[in-house]
């Protein structure tokens, strides 16, 4: 469901209306953590900047596997959870 929404957003170049911090961990928070580590707001911005349709993910968990940063270097992420509980409150959740 996330990808359908972001596809529409990407095409329209829409910017988020508001932001709040994550309180508890979830799969979505994990993926947001990964995008933000690579220097993007979220999947929407990544697809806008990198002009790609798909983001490479681990098939078993659905977590982001690989991202290309703005300097074109690559970040690789683990199959399992990387965002620890102490880092959850740093994750920004954008609302469109």
């Amino acid at each position, binding site marked *: 469901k996330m990808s359908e929404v972001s596809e529409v957003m990407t095409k329209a170049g829409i910017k988020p209306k508001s932001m709040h911090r994550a309180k508890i961990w979830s799969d979505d928070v994990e993926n947001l953590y990964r995008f933000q580590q690579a220097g993007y707001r979220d999947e929407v911005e990544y697809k806008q900047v990198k002009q790609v349709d798909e983001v490479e993910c681990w098939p078993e968990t659905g977590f982001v596997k*690989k991202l290309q*940063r703005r*300097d*074109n*270097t*690559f970040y*690789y992420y*683990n199959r399992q959870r990387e965002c620890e509980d102490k880092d959850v409150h740093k994750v920004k959740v954008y609302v469109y």
Partner: protein
Amino acid sequence: GFVLFGFFLFKVRGPPPAGSLKKRPAKRTAFRKFYERGDFPIAVQHAGVANKIAWKVEIESLDYHYFLPLFFDGLCETEFPYEFFARQGVHDMLEHGGNKILPVVPQLIIPIKNALNLRNRQVLCTTLKVIQHLVVSAERVGEALVPYYRQILPVLSIFKNMDVNLGDGIEYSQQKRENIGVLIKETLELFERYGGEDAYINIKYMIPTYGSC
């Protein structure tokens, strides 16, 4: 001890210590040479995250025959940033190597042996965790390692009983996965589980005190 020879008592000294537990000095690694030459596909200067390295090229396109043994060679390093890049580089390459890892296994044995032979606690911990990751990284890697047990297991046999008796104290190193005795036990169990039918008997031959899991 003393020895009675005729009417005289001679003090006899035992054999000198062999130093099996003593640290050995590390030689300059090929990893460090290539790192300083700038040959590595890693972006060194970037305002990135503490535990992550940024790759200049996609790992999937790397020549594993060339790079994986080089990164394994860096496991002997103890100084920052060499130790960090070697450890993280090996982790990323094993995580994303897939079927490229198995053909390279024979070339990884000498770097692993060199790292274990340093008898350095920190290097031992890192290398054991890397070996554990290697065994589960791809299909049949565990079985491919069986012929090389006689090169890797002797040092593990020496350190296997390094469990400290703290009485009723708390063993924090076990929680942090830095207790060598526990790490060795875990590694041997992974060898047995992923090594196929011949694994247990080969482990037992090298480490007679090992108990099946």
